[in-house]
């Protein structure tokens, strides 16, 4: 529709107009919904978890007994398992994901970039229960037959690989999680690397750097805070992943460093026991939800801090130059 200049000017000038007020109020209300939801969520979790909080206090976080028959609940193994499986996933996924992104943005021929990038991102479209099935029927037999025997022969004496491998294990969960968070980390880090100004590379290359040196010394440091953001996104996803983990982790309340031992995560026990839980058990599961929520918030806060510090350091570094 054609609009005259006069109409436009009137719209711009009419700051106190009723339309603007309504618009502002609506947006404010909409924006307020999110923090309100947050508060309501925490409130509900606290309310429902209260019987367990009162019964067990701080012991809940450290105790490793989970006995619904006796009515004793402790979340230690689940908190540990959540963090441990996520760390395993990060250790496996981060080098791979960032490697893929570097390859795709720096080295791959242009015609290859899009198909490979899309394929990696397609991993995110697979439902997690399908990952779980793949874990049970492909990954675990593969680990049992081909990976663990030689690995245990060499590294069996270390605490990481001691014990008998039954299949369902921390290792299986970690590998599965790594595959699941790979697309998140790699697609974000690809965007980040693509956003690095060409002048960075060109400057390094002009100084006589090889392409590898240019990536290592000019591109990656520039993209550092963005890459950390990508890793945190992956970590957040690993912490909360439920279904696939339930299916391969073994669901055992044990604190063990060994990767071949079964373990448990917070999300997994909620998924497993909530349906049939009543009374104190239900409250304990709510408290686990609260702890999981707290861990996720803490990890995000830590990541923010890290990104902020890295950004400040690199700003200081540039200033020093």
């Amino acid at each position: 529709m054609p609009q005259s200049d006069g109409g436009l000017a009137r719209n711009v000038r009419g700051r106190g107009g009723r339309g603007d007020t309504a618009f502002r109020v609506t947006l404010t209300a909409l924006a307020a919904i999110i923090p309100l939801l947050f508060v309501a969520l925490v409130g509900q979790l606290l309310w429902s978890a209260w019987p367990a909080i009162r019964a067990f206090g701080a012991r809940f976080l450290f105790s490793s007994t989970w006995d619904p028959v006796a009515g004793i609940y402790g979340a230690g193994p689940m908190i540990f398992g959540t963090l441990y499986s996520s760390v395993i996933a990060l250790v496996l996924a981060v080098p791979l994901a960032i490697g893929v992104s570097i390859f795709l943005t720096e080295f791959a021929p242009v015609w290859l970039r899009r198909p490979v990038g899309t394929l990696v991102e397609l991993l995110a479209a697979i439902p997690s229960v399908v990952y779980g099935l793949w874990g049970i029927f492909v990954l675990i037999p593969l680990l049992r037959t081909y990976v663990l025997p030689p690995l245990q022969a060499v590294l069996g004496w270390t605490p990481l690989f001691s014990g008998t491998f039954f299949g369902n294990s921390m290792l299986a969960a970690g590998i599965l999680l790594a595959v699941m968070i790979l697309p998140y980390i790699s697609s974000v880090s690809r965007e980040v690397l693509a956003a690095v100004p060409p002048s960075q590379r060109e400057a390094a290359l002009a100084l006589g750097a090889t392409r590898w040196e240019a990536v290592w010394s000019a591109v990656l440091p520039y993209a550092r805070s963005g890459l950390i953001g990508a890793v945190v996104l992956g970590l957040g996803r690993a912490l909360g992943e439920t279904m696939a983990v339930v299916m391969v982790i073994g669901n055992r309340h044990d604190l063990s460093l060994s990767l071949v031992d079964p373990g448990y995560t917070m999300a997994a026990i909620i998924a497993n026991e909530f349906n049939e839980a009543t009374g104190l058990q239900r409250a304990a599961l709510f408290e686990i939800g609260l702890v999981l929520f707290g861990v996720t918030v803490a990890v995000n806060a830590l990541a923010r801090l890290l990104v902020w510090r890295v950004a400040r350091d690199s700003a200081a570094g540039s200033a020093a130059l």
Partner: protein
Amino acid sequence: MRTTTLLRTLAAATVTLLAACSGQKQVVLLNGAGATFPNIIYQKWITDYNSANPGVELNYQSIGSGGGIQQFTDGTVDFGASDAPMGDEEIAAVNGNVLHIPMVLGAVVPTYNLPGVTEAVRFTPETLAAIYLGQVTRWNDIRLRSSNPGVTLPDQEIVVVHRSDGSGTSYIWTEFLSTLSSEWAAKVGKGKSVNWPVGIGGRGNEGVSAAVQQTPGSIGYVELGYAMINKMPVGAIRNHDGNFVTPDLSTVSAAAAGAMAALGSDTDFRISLINAAGERTYPVASFTWLLVHRENADSAKAAALVRYIWWALTQGQQAAEALGYAPLPAEILPLVEAHLRTVTANGSAVWSGPATK
């Protein structure tokens, strides 16, 4: 333009729908929720019954026994369903206003992965408890060898698999172990989820069966119907009379018949079929119950529900075997009938027996 047409069509459809609804005679709507184990047969019954009785519309949500008891207690459903009977505290929470009606029988069976062993492995209850306590750790343990004469059991580590989710299946299994092993009763006890001394947890029957099928040397427990449909190897268990009995629909039905002796006319059906007497009785069986209110406010609903239950207990039982459930023995019907007659609405009985239509 297109939007207007769409809106008009929608409006027209809504009007038609509303007219259809209001035009129909009053339909009695009955909502139920609870146990997942009988879900398949409950859905089959409901589909058959709804189509034969247009005046009644039944719905059943398989949210788990615990959820079923919860919703029944909260009054958000018209009937509940559970694989484990309500405890005395739970019954007190509904002021005793509940009837447990047994609907079909379920059984929990041991399944294992022993390449090369073709015979059904025979377990004594004591050995099973010892395996699940982590005391018998190898398949060629003397306790297993002595109950399996002539079978070559491999020198292999036993990998114990249990359910990771809270379930009636675990309840029945741990009730069995608790009943027959005082050590199990003292150390672990019975429940929908317990503190398992050893083993790995699989989610659902499918999770346990996947773990067992994938892990040589493993032992797990699943519902009988699930094992039958998936043709899994199942073990025989020594029963009350000292015979090793392989689980099947007839040996499970025999468990209810065997427990009949203990059922007086004043029973509330909250009885255990664990280790019931009888030569051919499989010892790890259980009823699955519907939970209904004894006193009701809505007589139309109460009457419709009781009629449906009676139909399921008589004609409905014929569907059981094909779906992997063991039907109730006929001897129990008069007892259930007497209980259903006690259902009242506003003080008067809603059902006077099978003759009433």
